């Protein structure tokens, strides 16, 4: 009877039932009258052509009808009626007929048929799990995506997402990726959209390639969630050890350029050199503008403490030239705000940025202050700098003790010893209440005490 109709080729099945089967009940002796392709295996005979309708609907016997024919939607099903029938016979399940799969639910009349639903398949091919998309042997029914060439881009984009593929799945999918199940929905283009090392991973290569999938994954912005291990406060500081360890997986997400955002100088770090370069497809994690957790606000002031680990610790991220950009003066456009020179007096007075660490006061500050007209002018009633305080000469001591570096930015030592000396000038004692400690023969003592 109609059992043999379980043939067919292909990755194709009817999309919806556009033919009024019920209205034609008992008009046809068998399903294969119209669906001859199920037996012959010919795709063009799988569905009836509109011309066949006109055999009866010729305007005389029956009214002329307009039917465009059935449209066959491409799918990735691995179903072939002929092979299926052979396997059924081999397994002795002769009760399997067209009706078994195509009869409508609860139908009791002939030709109450339609598209076979996946549930019918599952009535025999039961999964060992409640979730159709989880841990199922996909290959039983589905072709790998690389071979499902008939699928449209829209169908690929609409492939359902298993419940296991949640936000955390990305961190554990490496072990799952060894399963052939991945091939059902993924080609290597799926992976290489994120994995900068896709070409080096055998599991990814095994997925095969598909031009359609490549088109799907060529667009869209990638996001790289931060692994739990990377969220530790000190991860940046110790990540080099992990990166150099055997089996390091940095290259899954990081291109060479990811590292060079910080390691700009480290030409000779093998772990960086070994990373694949960024490609147009997989950009890798963008780490530009990232700072270690301890490089927060004000770090430029307290960074000297970090150098206790020797310059090697700093040198992991900073070129030595980076230090000179500040510690060489007159070129630190990256350190001070653009208009800092116009309002640097507060910072200089407090010493919070330790000007002398980068600027040699005599050679740098004095030179500019002289040029700006801030230094003493012979014949002037008072200096431009101290115009806010009358009788500055008698009042300067208290201010000077709090910010001697500020004084030195205009005045030479000789200027001060003009008064503060035991041998000349006004012989004013500059030492305050506490005599200076240390060797009295040092140069600073001998300047006044002969």
């Amino acid at each position, binding site marked *: 009877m109609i059992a043999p109709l379980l043939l067919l080729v292909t990755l194709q099945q009817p999309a919806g039932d556009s033919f009024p089967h019920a209205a034609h009940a008992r008009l046809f002796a068998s399903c294969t009258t119209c669906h001859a392709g199920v037996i012959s295996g010919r795709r063009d005979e799988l569905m009836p052509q509109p011309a066949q309708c006109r055999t009866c609907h010729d305007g005389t016997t029956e009214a002329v009808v307009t039917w465009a024919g059935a449209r066959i939607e491409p799918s990735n099903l691995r179903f072939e009626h002929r092979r299926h029938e052979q396997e059924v016979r081999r397994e002795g399940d002769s009760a399997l007929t067209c009706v078994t799969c195509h009869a409508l639910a609860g139908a009791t009349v002939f030709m109450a048929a339609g598209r076979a639903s996946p549930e019918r398949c599952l009535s025999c091919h039961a999964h060992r799990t409640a979730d159709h998309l989880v841990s199922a042997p996909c290959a039983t029914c589905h072709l790998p995506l690389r071979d499902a060439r008939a699928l449209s881009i829209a169908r690929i984009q609409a492939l359902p997402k298993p419940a296991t593929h949640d936000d955390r799945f990305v961190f554990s999918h490496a072990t799952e990726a060894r399963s052939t199940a991945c091939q059902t929905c993924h080609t290597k283009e799926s992976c290489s959209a994120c994995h900068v090392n896709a070409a080096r991973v055998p599991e990814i290569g095994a997925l095969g390639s598909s031009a359609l999938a490549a088109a799907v994954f060529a667009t869209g912005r990638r996001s790289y969630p931060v692994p739990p291990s990377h969220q530790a*406060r000190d991860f940046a500081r110790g990540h080099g*050890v992990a990166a150099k360890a055997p089996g390091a997986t940095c290259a899954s997400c990081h291109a060479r350029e990811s590292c060079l955002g910080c390691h700009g100088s480290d*030409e*000779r770090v*093998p772990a*960086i*050199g070994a990373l694949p370069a960024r490609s147009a497809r997989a950009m890798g994690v963008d780490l530009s503008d990232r700072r270690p*957790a*301890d490089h*927060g*606000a*004000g770090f430029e002031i*307290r960074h*000297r*403490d970090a*150098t*206790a680990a*020797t*310059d*090697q610790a700093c040198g992991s991220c900073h*070129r030595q030239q980076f*230090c*000179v950009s500040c510690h060489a*003066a007159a*070129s630190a456009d990256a350190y001070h*705000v*653009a*208009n800092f020179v*116009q*309002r640097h007096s*507060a910072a200089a*007075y407090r010493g919070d940025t330790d000007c*002398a*660490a*980068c600027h*040699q006061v005599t*050679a740098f500050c004095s*030179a500019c202050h002289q*040029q700006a007209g801030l230094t003493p*002018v012979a014949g*002037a009633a008072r200096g*431009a700098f101290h*115009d*806010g305080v009358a009788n500055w000469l*008698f009042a300067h001591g*208290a*201010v000077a*003790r*709090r910010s*001697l570096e500020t004084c030195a930015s205009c005045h*030479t*030592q000789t200027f001060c010893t003009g008064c*503060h000396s035991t041998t000349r000038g006004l012989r004013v004692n500059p030492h305050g*209440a506490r005599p200076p*400690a240390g060797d009295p*023969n*040092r*140069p*600073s003592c001998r*300047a006044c005490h002969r």
Partner: protein
Amino acid sequence: MLLAASAPPGALAQLQLRARSTTTAQLIQLRPLRYDTVSASYLAGDAAAATPLQQDIELTAWGFGVRGLRFASMIRLRSSLGSSLVWPRSDDHFDAYWAFVELERESWRLRAGRIQHPSPIIMTTFDGAAAMWRPHGRLRAEVFGGRSLVRALAEPATTSAIASLDPFVTSQGQLVAGVSAWAEPVAAVSAGFAYQREVTSDFGALVGEYAALQGGWSNGRVALSGSAVYDLGHDTWGRSRLSGVLSAGSGASAELALFQRRPLFPLNTIWGVFAPQGHWGASVTGEAPLLPRVRVSAGYTMRRYQPTTETTPFLPQLDDVTHTVRIAASLRQGPWQARGAWLLNLGYGGEHSGFEALGGYRRERWDVSGELVAFQESEELRVGSGTVYGIGASGRVAIGAASGLRGSLMQYFHRDTGGASAPNWSQLRALIALELTFGANADGGAP
């Protein structure tokens, strides 16, 4: 050159060079103050422009046939583009900041030549040698020594750059030697020590002697760190700082810090015996995401100075406490970013408040931004009072894989001049810098 000449035959086939060049030209308008004998006051002169030109060349070479052997140097050439005004240091036409030969193995490193040595004490530059030993990643020790160069100047102590300005400066050279160690005995616990001594080149006088301690602990959420520098020459504490940082998982963090400071003066200057008074202070800062793409931060710093010890009828009304407040916010939406900050300084001999806002558009290969600034100063001990507004723009464009061009332009307008002096800070500032990288891309493979 010597390295290349001494390399085994054929070894130079693997020689690789990498050079980075940064050419920076600036235009800085100034209006120098001039004393007006008629009004007996200081007035701002006409605008003149300083036009410093700076050329940095950084060169690294490796592949001499000996594993771990390399040469590294960084030199700076300076000049001026024809202006009569001299920007600081632009009349010093050549400096070599470092130029050393390095031999490095897994557990040790040797350097010889001109070396820049950062430490918790100070950045020291010297001509000599340094040896570092690191048996594993959690322990490092280093010794160094040689002819000391003037701090932040990269020139010998006898340089005319200082001697011509201050005849008091010693005519003797200086030597420096030091040792440092750092260890992380268990994860997230670290400690460091550094010691440094400078003497005159005849070993006849001490110039400076310092020791520093540093330690830190972190459990991921809380980080504590402390550091201190002791000035052995003056027998007093230099700087010390103790801070605690609390980090929240949401990206929020807060820091509380206590600190103390007294400047470190070399013993061959008189400043250290002029009874300098230090200060201590505390600061609290916080940073948190306010909205998904908005971050805000705020900070307050208080400094307390020792009460003035001198009493005179002319003593200026000095505050013993200074305050600094800073509030900032930033927004990042895709390639767009904006940030703004407000700052207030009180009690440093003047009052200062400032505001700056920046908006920018950033792509991988280029970016542009615009900036608005305004600040106001009311000076008690300084040049004068005034309000300054500024507007400007900056930009950057990448050239090739590792080169780029950047520039900025700012115009400032000075209003409301007050005080006996009449400074005028209205000025134009411009910068353009070309950064080029030549030679081997060593990142492409491990040597």
